[in-house]
């Protein structure tokens, strides 16, 4: 997509933990309006990259520009409010809050989150709440969580927790969503449906960067595909291009793919 | 000069804190809730040791009695009142332990009344090392505290059962799947931890006197020590106890004795702001 400015542009991003270089100068960019795949062997640093970009882990060096704004070192909530939301590979959430509350929480621009409006209960707050509730129901239905909508998050199965991760991200209507293995542990049939739904996102103005190990899923959804290995970007291209790269086969895909 | 002396004094008073602080932090490391009933258990240990000493047991024997009585009582309360609540989170268990602390304090009061009592033990004059004076008895206590610390530390860090304790604190379900019986581990942790707290109470009583509030008086400094060193870290508790001891003694010179208690907290605030997990972090060993 020549001519368009990248939505997310990462330059020479570095991060080490106790002397172990996990990100060793990552350069990548994500163009607006597409689904970009991020693959790479276990331990390549993909999740760490998401952690750094979403502000949970400060980078040691390097630049992260989102929509033209440098945001390395920002607090996670500020990044999130700018429209960059991420999900977690190992599902995380609020154990005692219900599925519904999880979904509602991620709704943006909630007037009811100001102390004053919460106490007096303004109309704006009520209306926004009602609108979000409708979306929450819709999201829950799609993810087959509607039956469980009042369940606390602890009482969900492993796969359901992952589905809730996706649901929350969708509720946030971000400009860029980072999905960390969104469908690992999700039943294949539902996984296909989720894939369909993700394909609609760019049309709604949501750009996607997703990590997956399911090659069928990557193949159907993602273009381009970025391959990371050992803390750096190894290569990038269409799925077919990267699939045939021998380094990718060697490090990542394994014997049968070859 | 006086500063040096205050530091030495701080180490001495720190050792008195260190023993119960080790017990407290070791229990925290395994059971994952701050057990406030240490105040009552320390008092109980002090009285148990007092009785044993009174009927003619030697110092070592009395310490063993203090350990056993405190350990058993602490264990019983953990089983009956605290651990059943841990499912609800650490705080309900902690709150319940405040109540059990009150129970223990009043059980002692019921039996012994309020009047302070003292161990019938000779008090030695301090000896001078140069210009610094140190108390031989308090050096003894200090040696005992360091020994206990090494034992607990080694047990948690190197023995299989110590590791199993940490494992079942970390992930009780998985520990059970690996054949570790979490209740047994919890039992051991409560018994040993509370036993140490009881010994701490008795050592404290040897140095001053005992009454139903003996444990309550040290509760704040004890927490401060454990937190300063990093909750759940055994060497941290010892380090924290020394630092709190020294900070408090120095504060006598700087802001006056009446603000002693406040100084400990300011120290914590500063340390925790710089190191949010305490000086030695939260590793149990």
């Amino acid at each position: 997509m020549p001519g368009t400015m990248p939505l997310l542009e990462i330059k020479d991003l570095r991060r080490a933990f106790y002397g172990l270089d996990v990100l060793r100068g990552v350069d990548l960019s994500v163009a607006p309006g597409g689904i970009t795949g991020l693959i790479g062997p276990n331990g390549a640093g993909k999740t760490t990259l998401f952690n750094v970009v979403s502000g949970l882990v400060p980078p040691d060096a390097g630049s992260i520009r989102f929509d033209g704004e440098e945001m390395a070192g920002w607090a996670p909530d500020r990044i999130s409010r700018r429209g960059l939301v991420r999900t977690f590979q190992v599902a995380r959430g609020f154990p005692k809050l219900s599925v519904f509350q999880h979904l509602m929480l991620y709704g943006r621009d909630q007037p009811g989150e100001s102390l004053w409006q919460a106490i007096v209960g303004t109309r704006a707050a009520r209306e926004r709440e009602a609108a979000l509730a409708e979306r929450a129901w819709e999201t829950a239905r799609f993810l087959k969580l509607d039956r469980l909508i009042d369940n606390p998050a602890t009482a969900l199965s492993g796969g359901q927790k992952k589905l809730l991760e996706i649901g929350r991200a969708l509720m946030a209507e971000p400009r860029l969503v980072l999905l960390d293995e969104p469908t690992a542990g999700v039943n294949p049939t539902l996984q296909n449906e989720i894939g369909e739904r993700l394909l609609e996102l760019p049309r709604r103005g949501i750009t996607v960067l997703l990590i997956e190990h399911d090659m069928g899923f990557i193949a159907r959804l993602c273009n381009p595909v970025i391959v990371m290995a050992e803390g750096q970007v190894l290569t990038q291209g269409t799925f077919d291009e990267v699939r045939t790269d021998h380094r990718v086969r060697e490090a990542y895909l394994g014997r049968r793919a070859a | 000069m006086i500063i040096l002396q205050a530091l030495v004094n701080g180490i001495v008073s720190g050792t008195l804190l260190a023993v119960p602080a080790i017990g407290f932090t070791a229990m925290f490391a395994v059971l994952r809730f701050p057990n406030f009933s240490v105040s009552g258990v320390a008092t109980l240990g002090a009285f148990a040791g007092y009785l044993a000493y009174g009927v003619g047991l030697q110092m070592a024997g009395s310490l063993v009695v203090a350990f056993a009585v405190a350990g058993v009582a602490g264990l019983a309360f953990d089983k009956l009142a605290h651990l059943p609540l841990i499912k609800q989170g650490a705080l309900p268990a902690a709150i319940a332990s405040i109540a059990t602390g009150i129970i223990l304090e009043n059980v002692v009061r019921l039996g012994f009344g309020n009047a302070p009592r003292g161990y019938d033990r000779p008090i030695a004059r301090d000896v001078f090392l140069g210009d610094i004076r140190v108390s031989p008895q308090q050096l003894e206590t200090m040696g005992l505290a360091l020994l206990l610390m090494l034992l607990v530390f080694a047990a948690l860090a190197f023995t299989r059962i110590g590791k199993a304790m940490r494992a079942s604190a970390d992930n009780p379900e998985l520990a059970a799947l690996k054949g570790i019986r979490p209740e047994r581990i919890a039992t051991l942790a409560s018994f040993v931890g509370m036993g140490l707290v009881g010994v701490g109470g008795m050592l404290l009583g040897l140095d001053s006197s005992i009454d139903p509030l003996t444990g309550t008086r040290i509760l704040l400094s004890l927490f401060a020590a454990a937190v300063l060193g990093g909750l759940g870290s055994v060497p941290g508790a010892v380090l924290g106890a020394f630092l709190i001891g020294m900070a408090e003694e120095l504060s006598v010179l700087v802001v006056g004795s009446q603000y002693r208690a406040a100084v400990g907290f300011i120290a914590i605030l500063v340390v925790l702001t710089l190191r949010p997990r305490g000086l030695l972090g939260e590793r149990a060993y």
Partner: protein
Amino acid sequence: MSLLQITGLRGGYAAADEIVKGADLKVEAGEIVALIGPNGAGKSTLLKLIAGLLRPSGGSVRFKEQEIAGLGAPAISRRGLSFVPQERNVFGTMSVAENLEMGGFIDGAHARKRMAELYERFPMLSEKRRAAARTLSGGQRQILAMAIALMNAPDLLLLDEPTAGLSPRAAEELFGTILALNKSGVAILMVEQNALEALSVSARAYVLVQGRPEHEGRAADLADDPTVRDLFLGGKAQPMLRGNGDSSNKGTGDFT
């Protein structure tokens, strides 16, 4: 007599709310059995009931011809049954080496030897032996969880989604490991969402729906059963790496 024989098993998290509603299932000695089904069907719950993490409210679980229902996890594990849970399956605050040590808690005598074997089989673990398990990547953690379970040389291994989060290559290697273990006589009951892969290494399979096994049979038969395919295996869309590189609908995302 089967190694594991389950009849009419019922149970869940709260007494009022049964998740597994009468399951019959068996695993023969030396067999690999797959358990698949939609999210929330009760697969993990079933495994937890077998392993003793949850107390069954009814039915029987016989392992090596002895009733084990209600015994509790430590006792059951001591009889030679290892379970790798789906979530929270490592000791996060402990090092990799200590995790393995805890895996061999029951049988400390052979721990050293097994640990060496596992380090050889999973070199990543050896590299990371001093790292706290909480710092491992998702895939690395999965491998560790598996290794922990192997530390006490079980006769029956219950695996809950062992390949979730593994790279294709690592997943393949893991299935290789599973087959190798199986060859050495370990029976395996495995829950997988990577279903076609799982079926391809299994002898038999069950499809669990709403707490009951609705379908069972030879794994290959189930994989070809059109209803099962549509409902549980993702229907027409096949994992591309199975059908020799058939990626007909790849890259159809309409990027603008």
